[in-house]
């Protein structure tokens, strides 16, 4: 049919307009660095004076802050290398999508720091709570990221729900066990995703 090209062109236009809003900087180094930091933090935790729920929340919030700062520097370096603006519209959209859930996670951690819960069970519920909130943020940002990022968010949400249920009905976990859980869940998953992206995403200049 001679008018098929018109519908096809409209489809192409729509796809390309959507694509212009997608964040395309290389994510493999970012995920790898965040993953390594998470695993390293879990290894260091038993040797650090992190022996109360309050210290646990403070320690992992500090790790998250270091990861965020590292991610910021990596993204900035990519932008500088490509001679592009750092705060591009796709970067802004992804950051805006991440921020509500990240803020909620920060607020939850802050409550732990201020209220000082005494039972290890509280920490057992903090970790799944952080997982769910992190997953929600990643999923929201996934609308402006390459495919796969939303699934990564869903894995955190589902994992957080399962872990939360296990913590609620099972015995209270030891703090050292929770450090390993954080290392494996946040560090390990990011490292694995970073390795996967390294072999699958387009290398070189990517936004």
């Amino acid at each position: 049919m001679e008018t098929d090209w018109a519908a096809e062109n409209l489809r192409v236009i729509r796809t390309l307009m959507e694509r212009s809003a997608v964040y395309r900087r290389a994510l493999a180094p970012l995920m790898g660095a965040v993953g390594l930091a998470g695993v390293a933090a879990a290894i260091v935790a038993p040797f650090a004076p992190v022996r109360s729920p309050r210290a646990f929340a403070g320690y992992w919030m500090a790790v998250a802050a270091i990861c965020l700062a590292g991610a910021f520097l990596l993204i900035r370096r990519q932008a500088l290398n490509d001679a592009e603006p750092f705060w591009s519209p796709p970067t802004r959209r992804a950051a805006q999508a991440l921020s509500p859930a990240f803020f909620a996670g920060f607020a939850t951690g802050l409550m732990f720091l201020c209220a000082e819960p005494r039972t290890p069970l509280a920490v057992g519920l903090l970790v799944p709570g952080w997982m769910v909130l992190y997953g929600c943020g990643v999923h929201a940002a996934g609308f402006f990221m390459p495919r796969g990022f939303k699934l990564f968010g869903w894995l955190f949400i589902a994992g957080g729900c399962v872990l939360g249920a296990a913590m609620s009905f099972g015995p209270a976990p030891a703090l050292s066990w929770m450090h390993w859980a954080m290392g494996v869940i946040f560090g390990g998953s990011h490292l694995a995703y970073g390795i996967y992206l390294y072999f699958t995403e387009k290398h070189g200049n990517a936004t």
Partner: protein
Amino acid sequence: MNPKPFLQIDRVIHEKGRLPIMSLLAASAGMSFTEMRDALDMTDGNLSMHIKTLQEAGFVSVTKSFRNQRSLTTCALTPSGRRAFSQYIDLLEQIVKQARTAP
């Protein structure tokens, strides 16, 4: 079928290489040359050639600047380019509508 929409189609935009450039720029305030090259998977030469054609038609403005001692080429749609692109989409929609309502 009414041939009018077919005859009104802008030949500068209606080209395999230039339509994607217009589409990308229509969805953003401006894009760097490298961003467009990567998003469209085009070669530097091919992209430059199409941008030049669009610039000559007055649809695209090109700004060259320096950022961290590197040259930065940024492209954006001009108001007339945005208007022309909007008209182009309207015409495509008319053509599709005609095809759907044709007996």
